[in-house]
């Protein structure tokens, strides 16, 4: 997501948040009760309540966070990452208002991915779908745009959902490592065309990051990965093409 989009989303949610009516103590209690009844983590809810008690005017944001978690739970969205991000924000002393805005965006991303899955086929709400929503939602948070995600899902829609999920995850890691989008897609297409993209390839972006530090450019990286994938090779074969060797690291002594 580019900076303009982020700013726009932020502005939209800030306006929505600012215009929301303040929650009373009873409303907060009701939100807490409803969330817990659905199965939202009690420790996360307690932490949010505790943070709300530390300062005046925080109850509204706390209530919004708890209501968002409860709504997401009732909508059968994957809760693990949402709860984890709330815990992360709290331990980092992020203001509750900002956590609430983030959470709204995250839930919106999850709903977008789920709708996208529904448009490409009969995707039943099972574990594969939950994982796809989580992984693709994370890809959006990592900077992959909704348009890119949509293009990828449509382009590889004949593949099984776990394979598409793996592909999106791999693509987002490659872009995190700084590879330009065209080369990311070239590597991904080579993996799908040859059915050679395995979960072990998720370790390749770390090689990419180190290779780029050594001055290897995107095209050389993409060439090495593409060739290895065409030959149904593994990450090590791509590493060797980039001039690296792998070595085992012994377990640290206690």
């Amino acid at each position, binding site marked *: 997501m580019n900076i303009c989009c982020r700013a726009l989303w932020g502005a939209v949610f800030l306006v929505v948040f600012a215009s929301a009516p303040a929650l009373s103590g009873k409303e907060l209690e009701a939100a807490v009760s409803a969330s817990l009844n659905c199965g939202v983590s009690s420790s996360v809810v307690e932490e949010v309540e505790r943070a709300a008690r530390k300062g005046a005017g925080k109850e509204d944001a706390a209530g919004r966070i708890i209501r968002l978690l409860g709504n997401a739970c009732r909508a059968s969205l994957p809760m693990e990452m949402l709860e984890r991000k709330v815990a*992360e924000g709290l*331990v980092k002393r992020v203001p509750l208002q900002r956590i609430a805005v983030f959470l709204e965006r995250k839930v919106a991303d999850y709903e977008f991915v789920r709708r996208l899955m529904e448009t490409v086929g009969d995707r039943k709400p099972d574990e594969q779908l939950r994982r796809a929503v989580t992984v693709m939602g994370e890809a959006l*948070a990592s900077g992959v745009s909704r348009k890119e995600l949509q293009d990828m899902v449509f382009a590889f829609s004949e593949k099984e959902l776990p394979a598409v999920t793996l592909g999106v995850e791999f693509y987002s890691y490659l872009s995190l490592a700084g590879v330009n989008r065209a080369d990311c897609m070239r590597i991904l297409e080579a993996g799908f065309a040859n059915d050679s993209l395995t979960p072990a390839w998720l370790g390749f972006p770390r090689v990419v990051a180190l290779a780029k*530090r050594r001055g290897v450019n995107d095209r050389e990286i993409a060439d090495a990965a593409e060739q290895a994938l065409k030959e149904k090779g593994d990450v090590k074969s791509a590493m060797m093409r980039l001039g690296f060797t792998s070595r085992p690291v012994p377990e*640290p002594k206690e």
Partner: protein
Amino acid sequence: MSNDRKMYSDEEIGGLIRGIPEMTPPPWLASRIMETLADKRSGVWARFKGWLTTPQSFTFSPARMVFASLLIVAVVGVAGMLGGRLSEVGSGQPDGLVPVSFVFKDPAMGLKSVAVVGSFNEWNAEENQMKYVPEIGMWVFRTRLPAGDYEYVFLVDGETVVQDPQSVLSKDDGFGNRNSVILVKGDHEYLL
């Protein structure tokens, strides 16, 4: 008992032995001695080889056949289950967990506490305090993680969030900062 025994020197004893007349042993002596000796036992391999190369005959009762079949099925089943489980968790790590060390440099030991918090520990700072190792001037935390990718940061003195300067990958945390990212491979081998 008389005390008039003569004492012989070694040389005298040798001379007496040499002076004994030679006699032909009786014909039965060799065979009698050989009878008292046990046959030389051949080695395990030689016996096994002999067993293999000698025609054998086996007899089975139906009950023994059934028992032997059940035993074979059970052994093959257990071996299959173990093999499947090992292939699921990756080579070399029976529990599927990979040793991972986090380090934070502090040569002057100017910090009171450092914790590593991340997606692998539910962002819980209390349970993941790092230990200072004066010999290397670093805060260290060792753990074992399942294969996967994890976001983390260091929490210094309980309030300051610091990204890992040694991490090669980082990710926007959505709150205006960046998290370090660690990719843990499943075969107990870090890349590079």
